[in-house]
């Protein structure tokens, strides 16, 4: 539905490109999130799809139409592209009513009045604002304004909806609620969407696929489950959640020699030369006694501290090698600081991390 090929973007006057050769294919009905730290080029990429930025080279297609091609000089202007967009600042026009805002794209397309009225009513009902149609847009709360912006994007029935951090201006509680609502809404309509955010939890919950971005490039692309449980780069492992990272000295088959000792790994690409291995704190098991069976990756250590936080206990364990690691343990675990414990790093949860991978 949307396809980017080797897209580069350098802003006028800038010395470094903001987007460096990005390629992505979004299938019809798919929800793809561009996730990355601020300044990584995700918004620039999205705005290029909308035609709000002029890329330096590469190509962009929406549906069957090529809307940008750096080598043939094709550049379709924003208002001629089959898109709709939701902005971070909502961009709800303050001099119009709620229905005036939502009707605007249809009025510009010169649809018959009756159809405009019907489609506006439908869109407002979808976002639950049907009783607010005649309110002035400035009388709404932040969350309601965001719904107006979403209705305005839905009403156009475009090939793809672009969303630029649409939830980041809402307060935490509202953000969580809108997140679930948005996902349900877009899945009901079956919309193709490209979504930009820096919030990894948002990306994990909403997306069919996540394109993880850093320094103008896609680092990894995959489903939320893949990216969280089996990241293949150090950046992927640390950006999507907390991780304990161990430096790899040598790899031989399924055994890797690290700075805390030799660990057994169980990954698809075993045998590759990993730079690091990592593990999520919640995947680490801590026991009071060493297991009587010979199990791999069990290491003795000293419990430095145990902090209860309601949902779980946050433990810090110092291993014999001197390295301290964080562990998220069950809330009912009963340990005392200073005692000897055994940590187990399950082989199937160890993540083999390379320096760089091809994102697909």
């Amino acid at each position, binding site marked *: 539905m949307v396809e980017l090929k080797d897209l580069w973007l350098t802003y*006028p*006057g800038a010395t470094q490109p903001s987007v460096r050769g990005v390629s992505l294919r979004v299938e019809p009905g798919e929800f793809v999130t561009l996730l990355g730290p601020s300044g990584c080029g995700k918004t620039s990429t999205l705005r290029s799809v*909308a*035609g*709000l930025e*002029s890329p330096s080279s590469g190509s962009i297609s929406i549906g069957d139409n090529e809307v940008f091609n750096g080598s043939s*000089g*094709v*550049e*379709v*202007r*924003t*208002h*001629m*592209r089959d*898109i*709709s*967009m939701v*902005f*971070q*600042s*909502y*961009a*709800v*026009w*303050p*001099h119009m009513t709620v229905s005036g805002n939502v009707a*605007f*794209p249809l009025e*510009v*397309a010169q649809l018959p009045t009756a159809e405009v009225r019907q489609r506006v009513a439908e869109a407002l009902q979808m976002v639950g604002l049907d009783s607010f149609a005649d309110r002035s847009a*400035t009388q709404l709360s*932040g969350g309601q*304004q965001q719904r107006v*912006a979403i209705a*305005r994007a839905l009403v*156009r029935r475009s090939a793809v909806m*672009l969303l630029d951090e649409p939830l980041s*201006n809402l307060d935490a509680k509202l953000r969580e609620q809108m997140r679930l609502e948005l996902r349900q809404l877009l899945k009901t309509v079956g919309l193709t969407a490209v979504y930009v955010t820096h919030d990894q939890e948002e990306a994990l919950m909403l997306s069919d696929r996540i394109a993880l971005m850093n320094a103008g490039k896609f680092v990894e692309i995959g489903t939320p489950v893949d990216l969280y449980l089996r990241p293949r780069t150090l950046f992927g492992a640390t950006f999507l959640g907390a991780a304990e990272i161990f430096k790899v000295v040598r790899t031989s088959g399924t055994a890797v020699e690290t700075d805390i000792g030799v660990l057994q790994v169980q990954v698809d690409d075993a045998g590759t030369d990993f730079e690091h291995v990592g593990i999520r704190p919640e995947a680490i098991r801590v026991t009071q006694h060493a297991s009587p069976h010979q199990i791999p990756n069990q290491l003795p250590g000293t419990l430095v501290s145990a902090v209860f936080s309601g949902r779980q206990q946050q433990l810090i364990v110092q291993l014999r090698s001197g390295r301290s690691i964080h562990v998220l343990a069950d809330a009912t675990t009963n340990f005392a600081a200073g005692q000897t414990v055994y940590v187990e790093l399950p082989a199937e949860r160890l993540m083999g991390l390379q320096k760089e991978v091809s994102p697909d």
Partner: protein
Amino acid sequence: MRQGALRSAPWLSFGLLALLLYLVAVPLALLLVSSFKPTGLPLDAGWSLQNFDLVYGDAGFYTLLRNTLTFALGCTVCALAVGGVLAWLVERTDLPFRATARVMIALPMVLPPFLLAMGWVLLASPRTGWFNQLFKDALGLTQAPFNIYSMGGMIFVETLALVPSVYLILSNAFRNMDPALEEAAMTCGARWPQMVRRIFVPLLAPALVAAATYLLIVGFLVFDVPGTLGMPVGLFVVSSRIVYLATDQSGGTSAYGQIAAIAVTFLVLLLALAWSYRRMTRQTNRFVTVTGKGFRPRQLKLGGFKPFAVAAVMLYFVLAVLAPLGLLLWTSLTPYLAAISWEMAGKLTLAQHSSVLSNPRVGAAAWTSIWVSMLSATLVTALALLVAWTVLRARSLGQEARNLIDTLSFMPLAIPGTMIGMALIYVYLTLSFIPVYGTAWILVIAYVTVYLSFTSRTASASLIQLHPELDEAARTCGASPATTVRRIVLPLLLPALAGAWVWVVAHVMRELSTALLLQGDENVTLAVQLWSYWAGGEPSKAAAVGVWLVIVMTVITIVWQRLSARKDVVFGG
């Protein structure tokens, strides 16, 4: 589908740049060239430093320089002191009748400075001034205590005229100071004097310095007050000297070269000031004390000083509005120039008013003022919107070109109306194939240039508030750039633009010096007509025209206040 290179219209931006160069840079360049020509006309043969020799060799030039500096510095210091105290009283103390006080301090805006000066001539001229006669009779003096035709008189009247501007700048600064900043200092153990010295003054400093520089520029370029009070007794500052040299026929046209040399000298000074003003106002933006959070500034209790504070506000109002305007009204009603007295009260007549109102020359002048002011306002507002859009939003132009447009549109702030007038004379005497010299059209060109800096900054300020995503949202909804401007940008900017439009109309209506320099038979404005009554020894007729001008100005100002009050709409959620 369109080719990439044509995505927006660069010809519009380049056309704008060319227009600004023509409006601002060409006149200044011709002024500069003229100053090096022996005849003082830019296209004549030969180059020489003769004009500068003549000007710098003349001891009178240094008197002129000293007078101009004394006047500019004098009214800057006085206006800052008076305006600062008034702003502080209204905004940061428990002064009673606060709302009334605000109106009383802002009201002098409706009184054109030359009318204020004329009112003060009637009040304090050595021979006929009403105050002088009152004091002579009451105290048995043989000599008049006040002489308004002096440097002191000029500074005094100009101060009265400048106080409202100072008040507006500083009261905003006072109001926007978050009391939490002061409270924080007090919770750190600071006492009042320490708090004032370490927190209050430094926070206020950017606003103070910017206000001072602005006043200094105005002090250098105003003509109204020095022209009314200094020119008749040969006490000149640069702007009145230029008008004198240009309109005084005894010197012939040869004075043009000297005028250009004087103008160039002062322009260098003014542009330097304007440049530093701009740097400073940019800095103040970084000191944003406005948080958008509602708060009430900490107020000092005046206690026993309350009556004095009220009296200070009242005194300013009497001196700046009531007394001069009252005397103008009285003069417009007397059959001949006479002081206020009971026996004259019986002889009051509307004869002057009816004579003036039925005079076709006055009618023609009023019509010229009206259409010139409305047309100039419309053109300059449209131009300002284009400038603001190009500087802030257009992508088709490089950063250097946008900076150039920004600078060109700002420069007129520092160019006195008299100098624009002179420069335009050079331009259109040279480009004689454009037949505007001596017509009202040359006034339109002059006013579009002069008021470009105010309007373009108003337009930029409101365009900055307009989040770019508001118009990008329209583009992603399928609206073309033209539709976006028509349906989204214009409606949102309209209150601010309408405010700027009315402001320009009001200022053109009361503008004197440029109109005086550029006057021909067909383009006499109301202000010029008033001035010629005054200079021609018909003060009663001048006063009658003045009273009507004030009425028109009051109406326009009320409209402006209404429009600017609507600017507080929150844009962009």
